[in-house]
């Protein structure tokens, strides 16, 4: 069945350019229907009579605020609790014990980059809470960052549908760390205490966020253009503490960077930053071809 779309092809091309310029992400060629569905919702929220009217305004008047909202809406991803189980196991069995032994200030700081609606930060918080039961006396904080978007607002609220809490979250964790809120489930304060969220443009310099023992950037990198990949990795490298870790998706190719990191043979999806005194100059090679971004699809 063919679908009649209201968005002109030239507008679709313009939206692709806008997404690349603002976010460094390649929007796919064949997803006009998904794009139109998402933007139609945004147009209604913004009080427009039609999607075309909103797009006319966007490109006719060059509204920056609207441009950010449009791009954020297009880039919103469907995320799950405990995404990438292999990576979560690595965090539980290797990273948290290692960081605990290495921590000089009894503090472990974790950054969840491109956290969308917050399932990854809250999954980490569950691990942190269990870890602290076994090893009390540490302070673990988790910061989730992403573009300003409705997804990030949902993350802050910590409220999820009954479908969302059943994807990746074991039932025992659900009843331990969530309260029922009508048809939905809401994160308990004990979990929220671990987590903060912050709006952040992912191509911005991250220095203001401080330094982290572990930075997670999973299953997002392939969508970025090559120049944007370099910028993102360079930014991420700047916020990992010496001897801290940078983790990608466990099945993900990532640029062969030498931003002062060592490759970890036992954990190929992770890099460890060298000690402060032996960090070398930056070199980078970008490998893989770009992956097309499909709105709403998790990698």
């Amino acid at each position, binding site marked *: 069945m063919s679908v009649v779309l209201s968005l002109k092809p030239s507008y679709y091309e313009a939206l692709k350019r806008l997404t690349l310029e603002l976010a460094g992400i390649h929007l796919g060629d064949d997803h006009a229907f998904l794009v139109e569905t998402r933007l139609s919702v945004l147009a209604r929220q913004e009080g427009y009579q039609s999607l075309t009217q909103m797009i006319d305004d966007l490109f006719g008047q060059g509204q920056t605020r609207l441009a950010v909202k449009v791009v954020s809406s297009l880039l919103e991803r469907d995320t*799950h609790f405990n995404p990438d*189980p292999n990576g979560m196991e690595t965090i539980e069995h290797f990273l948290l014990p290692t960081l605990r032994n290495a921590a000089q200030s009894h503090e472990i700081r974790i950054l969840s980059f491109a956290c969308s609606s917050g399932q990854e930060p809250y999954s980490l918080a569950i691990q942190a809470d269990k870890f602290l039961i076994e090893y009390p006396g540490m302070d673990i904080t988790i910061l989730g960052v992403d573009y300003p978007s409705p997804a990030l607002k949902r993350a802050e609220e910590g409220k999820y549908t*009954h*479908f969302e809490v*059943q*994807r*990746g979250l*074991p*039932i*025992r964790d*659900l*009843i331990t760390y969530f309260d*029922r809120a009508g048809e939905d489930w809401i994160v308990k304060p004990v979990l929220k205490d671990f987590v903060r969220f912050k709006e952040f443009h992912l191509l911005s310099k991250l220095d203001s966020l401080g330094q982290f023992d572990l930075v997670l950037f999973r299953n997002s990198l392939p969508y970025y253009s090559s120049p944007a990949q370099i910028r993102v990795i360079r930014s991420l490298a700047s916020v990992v503490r010496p001897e801290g870790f940078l983790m990608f998706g466990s099945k993900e190719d990532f640029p062969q960077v030498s931003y002062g990191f060592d490759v970890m043979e036992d954990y190929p999806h992770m890099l460890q930053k060298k000690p402060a005194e032996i960090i070398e100059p930056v070199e980078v090679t970008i490998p893989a071809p770009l992956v097309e971004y499909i709105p709403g699809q998790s990698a």
Partner: protein
Amino acid sequence: MRTCLVVDNSKMIRRVAGRILSELKFSTEEAENGQVALNHCRSKMPDAILVDWNMPVMDGLSFVKALRLETGGKKPIVLFCTAERDVIKIAEALDAGADEYIMKPFDSDIIASKLHQVGLLVS
């Protein structure tokens, strides 16, 4: 091929769950209540059981309690699949011996996610 017994008094639910499980490469069999399921397990223990709570003759909770007392009854992975969402009810099901718990309505993503969690599916 792994086997899963779907226990629900609704024929439609048994059919929908069976179709999803087939797509996940499970061989499925059906039972319309806990007593039929228990008899089935006595002759042929499946790898997994998807069981509703409220059913005539023998409900899901009674079935799981009885199953766990049977020889070999500790082995099958039991997933409750029910409209009951009360936290106390969920805890009761886990105490009775359920390994996981699915709240209706469900979809194929949820079933697959739960089967991953209990180690019956590998990505």
